[in-house]
């Protein structure tokens, strides 16, 4: 796990790393799903998690916003630091904390509400009720998600009438409307067609300026296209974490080499 100095962003208010994980273990009941994972992620970068199905990459992603709390019988040891605060310490208000971490899921999951209400949801549960404030934020979030032009005349239509690709961009808009600093994406394009996928990838590239993005993907070309650094997971372990270029051209571990050349997985 070599850390390259060139990825340190200068002037970050929270030390040099946005996310810092040390010695993380995760158990479903007695089965260990993540083994002693340590990783450091710099702000305003895109990090891709790759690896075969069941390797723990999605489970690990969900540690960053404590989504695994929803599953019964999960035990976690080690520490997950976001902005140098350990989010698994009891002092944290998990609901408030999750507002800082946006998440986009594998399948688009808009609420069965209007397009407007979907994007406004995160603000409304925060107690924001001023129509003009909501309108402003909804518009800017939809613009950032490159969806505004397509939906601006139909904001009151049900979100379920949108196409899959539009729904996923709506979910991105919904996530960034609460102004998180980290954006977690769990295979955000895996259920979309190539054109929609290209749009999402374009978007990820643009959103990097404002967010620290972690993306789980099955698609290695996608990882190569969008990410600055790539982490390869296998059987619950972090095998290799390095610059994306290096992982795909000259990985230092044999398992990584085998996976990216398609010998298994």
């Amino acid at each position: 796990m070599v850390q390259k100095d060139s990825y340190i962003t200068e002037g970050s208010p929270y030390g040099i790393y946005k996310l810092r994980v040390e010695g993380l273990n995760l158990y479903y009941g007695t089965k260990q799903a993540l083994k002693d994972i340590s990783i450091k992620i710099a702000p305003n970068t895109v990090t891709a998690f790759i690896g075969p199905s069941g390797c723990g990459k999605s489970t690990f992603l969900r540690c960053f916003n404590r989504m695994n709390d929803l599953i019964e019988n999960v035990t976690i040891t080690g520490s997950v630091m976001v902005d140098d605060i350990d989010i698994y310490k009891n002092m944290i208000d998990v609901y408030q904390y999750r507002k800082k971490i946006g998440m986009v899921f594998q399948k688009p999951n808009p609420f069965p509400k209007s397009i407007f209400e979907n994007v406004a949801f995160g603000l409304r549960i925060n107690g924001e009720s001023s129509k003009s404030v909501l309108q402003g934020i909804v518009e800017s979030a939809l613009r950032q998600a490159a969806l505004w032009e397509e939906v601006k005349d139909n904001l009151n239509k049900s979100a379920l009438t949108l196409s899959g690709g539009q729904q996923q961009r709506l979910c991105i808009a919904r996530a960034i409307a609460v102004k998180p600093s980290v954006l977690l994406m769990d295979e955000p394009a895996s259920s979309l067609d190539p054109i929609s996928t290209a749009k999402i990838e374009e978007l990820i590239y643009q959103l990097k300026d404002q967010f620290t993005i972690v993306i789980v993907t099955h698609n290695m070309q996608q990882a190569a296209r969008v990410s600055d650094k790539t982490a390869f997971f296998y059987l619950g372990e972090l095998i290799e974490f390095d610059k994306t270029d290096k992982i795909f051209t000259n990985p230092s571990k044999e398992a990584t080499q085998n996976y990216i050349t398609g010998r298994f997985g």
Partner: protein
Amino acid sequence: MNRIRIRSEKVIEWIMILCSLVSVLTTIGIILVLSVDAFKFFKEVPFVDFLTDTQWTPLFEDKHFGIMPLLSGTLLTTTIAILLAVPVGITIAVFLNEYASKKFTSVVKPLLEVLAAVPTVVYGFFALQFVTPLLQKVIPGLAGFNALSPGIVMGIMIIPYITSLSEDALRAVPKSLREAAYGLGANRFQTAFKVIVPAANSGIVVSVILAISRALGETMIVAIAAGQQPRLTFNPLESVETITTYIVQVSMGDVPQDSLEYRTIFAAGITLFAFTFLLNNISFWMRKKYQHRYE
């Protein structure tokens, strides 16, 4: 060989058609019987009188055939039941689905459904012998027979209908919506009431409509505890009579068949049938129209 198989397929198909015809023919039969006698009734009593007269005294010397008193009794007891059962039933469903552990739910849900298995005659005596005296301590001057007590007990009876169907509807909401809400920083209460309940609303409304149908048709509880005095009132402290109670009263009594008095029960019956038929159609329509299509 092949021919035998084709023939046996045909036989099975016919058996299935016959089975489904049983329910269809029963419904048609009921409508026919009700309509024929109700039609004869309306030949003697003008339909306008039936709807507008404020008294229902077919068995007395001075006969009046206004359905309003029976309807008000029915709607009054049903409204009391629904006002109790809907908030309690939905709250229990949300609690079981969103807050309670799986283990707790698996124990409590069957226990709750036992409520639906209690014979209604038992509920009737429970209302008359236990709930009414209890209420009389709180509300002085409450009549021994009143609409409030059977309404409350009927509400308790239909709680499991609402809870069970609503819980199914809540459980059918995809996990992904719950994750989306939590991911945006919603707490459990916000997730439950701003996302999960609205997403399950068609199923919840259907459960409420079915519960209303059940309350409208309920007979035993109101027959025992509401008294049998047709009275146009919306005061829950007075004694009332419902449509179902009246039908029981006449069909058990010594009113000669094929008389006008006897036919009143068909006129009352078809009114009740019209209500439940309408409600069932609304629930069917709601289910079709408002069901959110998830993959």
